C-alpha cells in the first residue's frame, strides 16, 4: 500500500548516491561499480541540500575525494571527472563555462537542482563552444532536488521571508507571482522525487489557492509532455493509491508559529537554534560544541516529541542502563584474575574478551549519544530557568484553551522573567487567543510592552489583522464540541478540540488534515478547492476521488515549525492503520524569527517602532 511515501529520506539519499555515481544505477552493495574517483562541486544552496543527507564518510564511500564550493578558487586536477550539483542560474553557468575553459577537470557532469531553462542551456552551449571546451561537458541532468530534507518526513524549501513577501501591502503582482513560481518549482521537485501526482486541496483565497492552481497547471503541462517523470503512477488511478497534498497558508493558524512549546524538539529548535539538523551549544567544559540531530540519533528519534521533564528522565534511565552494561562487561572480563587458568574456562575467557572488545564501539557510541543529550538538556535547563519558559508555555496553552486570561496574571507575566521577544510573543498570543478584545486590557498590555522597550510593531500588525473585516472565508473549528462562529475574524485561529486521547490541545491544522484525509463531506472543509492534475480539465466534482487517503503531504506557505510537524506525526501514528504524513514548509522558523517577520510587516504598514531599542 505505502508505495510512495515510505522511504522519503532514503529516496533522497539514493538520488544523491546515484548522482554521485555519475547517474548510473548503483549496484546492490551501494558502492561505485568501478573505482572512479571524482570531485564534487556545489553551490551554497545545494550545500544546504547535501549537508543533512551525506557526510564526508559517505562521500568517500562513493569515491568523492574532494568537495568544493563553486565560488571558491579552484586549481586543476587532471584526469578525474567532476560532478557539479548547482542551481540553474546565470552566475553558476558562467562559473561552469570559466572552469571548462580553464580545463580544470577531465570531464564535467552537470546536475542541476531543478529544470534548467532553455535559454541558460543555450548560453552554456555557446560559452563552452567559444572556449572550445564543449567536449569536456559529458552529461547534463536535471535532478529535481531543490529542497532540503531534514528528517524522514520533513522537508523545507529554504525560501527566506516568504511570509513577509506574500503579505507585504506594497508588493506588486509580479513579485507575488515570482514567489509563487519559486514555491511551485520547489513543490514540483518534491513530487517528482516521490514520483506521485497527488490530489491537491487547499482553502479558498490567499497564497494557498494561487500556489495550488499554479502547481496544478504545471503538473498538467508536464504530464502531457513525452517522457514525463510520473509514468510509474499511471496505473494507479484510484484514489486509494494517490496521496493528498494539502496546501495551507501561515495565516490559517498564526498561533502555532509564535507560541512557546515545551516539547524537546521544539525547544531545541526555538531556544538553541537548530539549523539544518546542526546545533552549537556551550559545552560543559567551556567552548562551543557542535552536534548533529537527525534520524541517525536513536535518542532524538524516539524522544523528540516528549515534553522536557520526561526527556530528562529518559536521559537518566539511559545513563543507568549504560552504566549497568559497562559493569557487566567489566565483570565478565576484568573481574576474573589472569591467574585462574582452568582449562575449560580459558576459551570462555578469551571469548568474553573478544565479545567485550567487539562491544566497545557500540558502548562508546551509546555513551556519546547520552553525553550529547545531557549537554543539550543542561543548556536548555539553564535557558528555561532564566526565562521561565515553562510558565510561558503553560500560560499560553491555557489562554488558547480557555480563550481568556486573568488580567493580573497577564501583566504579571509581562513584567516577569523572559527576554523581550518572549514577552512580545506572549502578548501576541494573548491577542490571538482572546475571543473578545477588551480595549483597556490591550492598552495596558501595550503600555507594559513599551515599558520594557519592546518593539510593538508586530503587536500592532496582529491587532490590525484581527480587526480587518475581509470577506475571506473562515475555517470553523469545534471548540469544546460547540461550533463557534468566527465570522468577525478573518482567519481561523486556535482553541482546538481538546483531544480525549491525549492531553494536548489539537492544532487546527491537524484537525483539518484529518478531515481532508477522511474525505467525508464536512462543513469545515467543503469550501476547500480540489485540483486533480490527472483528471481532464472539464470534469469537476469527481466524487470518487474523495475516498479516505492513507498518505498525505502537508505544505505550509510562509513558515512551518517543529510543533506542527510533531503534531502531524502524532496524528499519523495514532490512526488505525498507521497513516503517513509528510510535512513541509517554505522555511522552518522559530518563534523569534516569525515574530521578526511580523515586526517587519508592522514597519511596512507604518506602525513604526515606538521604542528606540531593538527587540533583542
Amino acid at each position, binding site marked *: 500500500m505505502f508505495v510512495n511515501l515510505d522511504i522519503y529520506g*532514503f*529516496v533522497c539519499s*539514493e*538520488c544523491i548516491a546515484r548522482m554521485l555515481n555519475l*547517474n548510473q544505477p548503483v549496484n546492490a552493495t551501494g558502492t561505485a561499480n568501478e*573505482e572512479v*574517483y571524482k570531485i564534487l562541486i556545489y553551490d551554497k544552496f545545494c*550545500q*544546504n541540500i*547535501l*549537508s543533512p543527507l551525506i*557526510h*564526508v*564518510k559517505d562521500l*568517500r564511500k562513493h*569515491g568523492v*575525494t*574532494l568537495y568544493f564550493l563553486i565560488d571558491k578558487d*579552484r*586549481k*586543476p*586536477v*587532471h*584526469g578525474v571527472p567532476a560532478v557539479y550539483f548547482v542551481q540553474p542560474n546565470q552566475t553558476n553557468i558562467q562559473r561552469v563555462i570559466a572552469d571548462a575553459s580553464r*580545463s580544470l577537470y577531465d570531464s564535467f557532469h552537470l546536475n542541476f537542482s531543478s*529544470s534548467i531553462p532553455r535559454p541558460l*542551456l*543555450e548560453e*552554456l*552551449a*555557446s560559452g*563552452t*563552444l*567559444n572556449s*572550445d571546451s*564543449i567536449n569536456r561537458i*559529458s*552529461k*547534463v*541532468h*536535471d*535532478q*529535481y532536488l531543490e529542497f532540503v530534507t531534514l528528517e524522514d518526513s520533513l522537508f523545507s524549501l529554504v525560501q527566506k521571508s516568504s511570509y513577509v513577501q506574500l503579505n507585504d501591502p506594497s508588493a506588486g503582482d509580479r513579485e507575488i507571482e515570482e514567489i509563487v513560481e519559486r514555491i511551485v518549482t520547489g513543490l514540483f521537485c518534491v513530487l*517528482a*522525487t*516521490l*514520483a506521485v501526482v497527488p490530489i491537491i486541496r487547499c482553502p479558498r483565497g490567499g497564497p494557498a489557492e494561487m500556489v495550488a492552481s499554479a502547481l496544478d497547471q504545471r503538473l498538467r503541462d508536464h504530464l502531457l509532455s513525452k517522457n514525463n*517523470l510520473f*509514468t*510509474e503512477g499511471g496505473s494507479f488511478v484510484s484514489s486509494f493509491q494517490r496521496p493528498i497534498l494539502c496546501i495551507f497558508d501561515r495565516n490559517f493558524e498564526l498561533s502555532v508559529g509564535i507560541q512557546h512549546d515545551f516539547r524537546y524538539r521544539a525547544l531545541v529548535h526555538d531556544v538553541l537554534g537548530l539549523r*539544518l539538523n*546542526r546545533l552549537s551549544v556551550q559545552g560543559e567544559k567551556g567552548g562551543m560544541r557542535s552536534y*548533529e540531530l537527525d534520524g541517525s540519533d536513536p535518542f532524538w528519534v524516539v524522544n523528540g516529541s516528549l515534553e522536557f521533564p520526561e526527556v530528562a528522565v529518559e536521559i537518566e534511565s539511559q545513563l543507568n542502563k549504560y552504566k549497568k552494561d559497562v559493569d557487566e562487561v567489566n565483570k565478565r572480563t576484568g573481574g576474573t584474575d589472569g591467574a585462574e587458568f582452568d*582449562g575449560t574456562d*580459558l*576459551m570462555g575467557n*578469551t571469548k568474553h*574478551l*573478544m565479545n567485550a*572488545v567487539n562491544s566497545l564501539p557500540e558502548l562508546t557510541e551509546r555513551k556519546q549519544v547520552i553525553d550529547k543529550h545531557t549537554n543539550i538538556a543542561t543548556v536548555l535547563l539553564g535557558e528555561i530557568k532564566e526565562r521561565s519558559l515553562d510558565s510561558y508555555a503553560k500560560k499560553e496553552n491555557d489562554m488558547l484553551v480557555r480563550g481568556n486570561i486573568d488580567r493580573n496574571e497577564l501583566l504579571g507575566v509581562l513584567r516577569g522573567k523572559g527576554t523581550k521577544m518572549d514577552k512580545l510573543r506572549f502578548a501576541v498570543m494573548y491577542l490571538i487567543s482572546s475571543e473578545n478584545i477588551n480595549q483597556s486590557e490591550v492598552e495596558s498590555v501595550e503600555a507594559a510592552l513599551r515599558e520594557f522597550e519592546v518593539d510593538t510593531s508586530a503587536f500592532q500588525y496582529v491587532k490590525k489583522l484581527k480587526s480587518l473585516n475581509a470577506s475571506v472565508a473562515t475555517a470553523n473549528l469545534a471548540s469544546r464540541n460547540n461550533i463557534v462562529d468566527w465570522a468577525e475574524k478573518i482567519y481561523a485561529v486556535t482553541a482546538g478540540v481538546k483531544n480525549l486521547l491525549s492531553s494536548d490541545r489539537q492544532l487546527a491544522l491537524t484537525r483539518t488534515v484529518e478531515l481532508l484525509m477522511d474525505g467525508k463531506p464536512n462543513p469545515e472543509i467543503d469550501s476547500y478547492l480540489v485540483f486533480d492534475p490527472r483528471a481532464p480539465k472539464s470534469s469537476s466534482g469527481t466524487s470518487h476521488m474523495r475516498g479516505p487517503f492513507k498518505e498525505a503531504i502537508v505544505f505550509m506557505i510562509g513558515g512551518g515549525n517543529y510543533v506542527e510537524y510533531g503534531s502531524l506525526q502524532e496524528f499519523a501514528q495514532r490512526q488505525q492503520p498507521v497513516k503517513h504524513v509528510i510535512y513541509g514548509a517554505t522555511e522552518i522558523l522559530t518563534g523569534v524569527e516569525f515574530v521578526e517577520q511580523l515586526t517587519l510587516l508592522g514597519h511596512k504598514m507604518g506602525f513604526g517602532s515606538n521604542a528606540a531599542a531593538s527587540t533583542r
Partner: protein
Amino acid sequence: MHVKSAKSFRDRTQEFQSIAEQLKKSFSSGSVPDGPSSSSKSEEQRSAVAIQSEFNRRASKIGYGIHQTSQKLAKLAKLAKRTSVFDDPTKEIQELTVLIKQDITALNSAVVDLQLHCNSRNGSGNTYSDTNSHSATVVDDLKNQLMSTTKEFKDVLTLRTENLKVHENRRQLFSSTASKDSINPFVRQRPLAARSAASTSNAPPLPWANGTPSSSQSLPRKQMDGESQPLLQQQQQLVPLQDTYMQSRAEALQNVESTIHELSSIFNQLATLVSQQGEIAIRIDENMDDTLANVEGAQGALLKYLNSISSNRWLMIKIFFVLIFFLMVFLFFVA
C-alpha cells in the same frame, strides 16, 4: 527497501548536444579557435596529465586488486563456514589462504609504493595543491579498503580456527575409542606442540587473535603430560591412521596461527599509516562555518580598533582646541 525503478531525473544531454550542433553550424564560418595559444597551453598540461594518469592507472590497478581479493575472501568464508567433521576441504582452504595472504602482502607494498610516489611528487612542487590533496585522499581511501579486507581475512581465519576446534570436540564425542585414542596422538604431537609453544611466545601484540589458537594448543599439552606412556604400546596399530589425520589438522591450525601472526604485522603497519584518517563524521558545511566565524570575529576586532583610533582622533582635536584656547589667553594677557 525496494529501489525505485523510475528515474526522478531528466537527461538533458541530448538537448544540450543538439543545441551545440546548431550553434557550431552557425559559428563555423566565424571564429577559428585560437590555434597557437591552445597548443602551448595543452603542452604544459600534457605533462601534468601524463603524471596524473600514471597515478590514476596505478591507483585503479590497486583498487581492482583489492576488489578481486575480497571476492576470493568471500569464497574462503563460504568454505570455512560449511565444513563438517569428516568432509573438510582442508587443502583448498589452505591453498586459498596462502593465495590471499600473498595478494594482501603484494597490495600492501603496492600501496606503500604509491604513497611514496605521491609524496615525492607533491614534494617536488610542480603540481597543483588540489591535485595533491586529491592524490593523498585516493591513497588514504585505498589504504582503508585494504585495511578492511585484511580485517575480514582475520575474521575468516578466526572462524576457521573455531570450526576446527568444534570438529575436534565433536570427533571426541562421536568416536567410541575417543577417550583413549585422543591421548595417543598427543604423544606424537609433542614436537608439534613444542613448535607451537615457541610461536605463541613470538606473537605478543594480538592477545585476542592468538588467544584462541594458543588455548587450543595448551589444552592438548596439559592432557598430554599425563598418562601418555602406558597407553602407547596398546594403541600402536590404530595410531598411523589417525596420526596422519591429526597431523594434518594440527598443521592446518598451525598455518592459521602463523597467518594471523603475519596479518597482525600488516595490520600494525597499515594502522600507523592510516592513523590520521579515522571515522570522522564531519559534515560538508562544517569548515565553512568555522571560517565564517573566524572572519566575523576578525572583522569585529578590526572595527573595534577602528573605533578606538577614531575616538583618539576626537580626543586629540579636543586637546588641540584646549591648547589653542590657552595660547589665546596667554597672548591676551601678555599682549
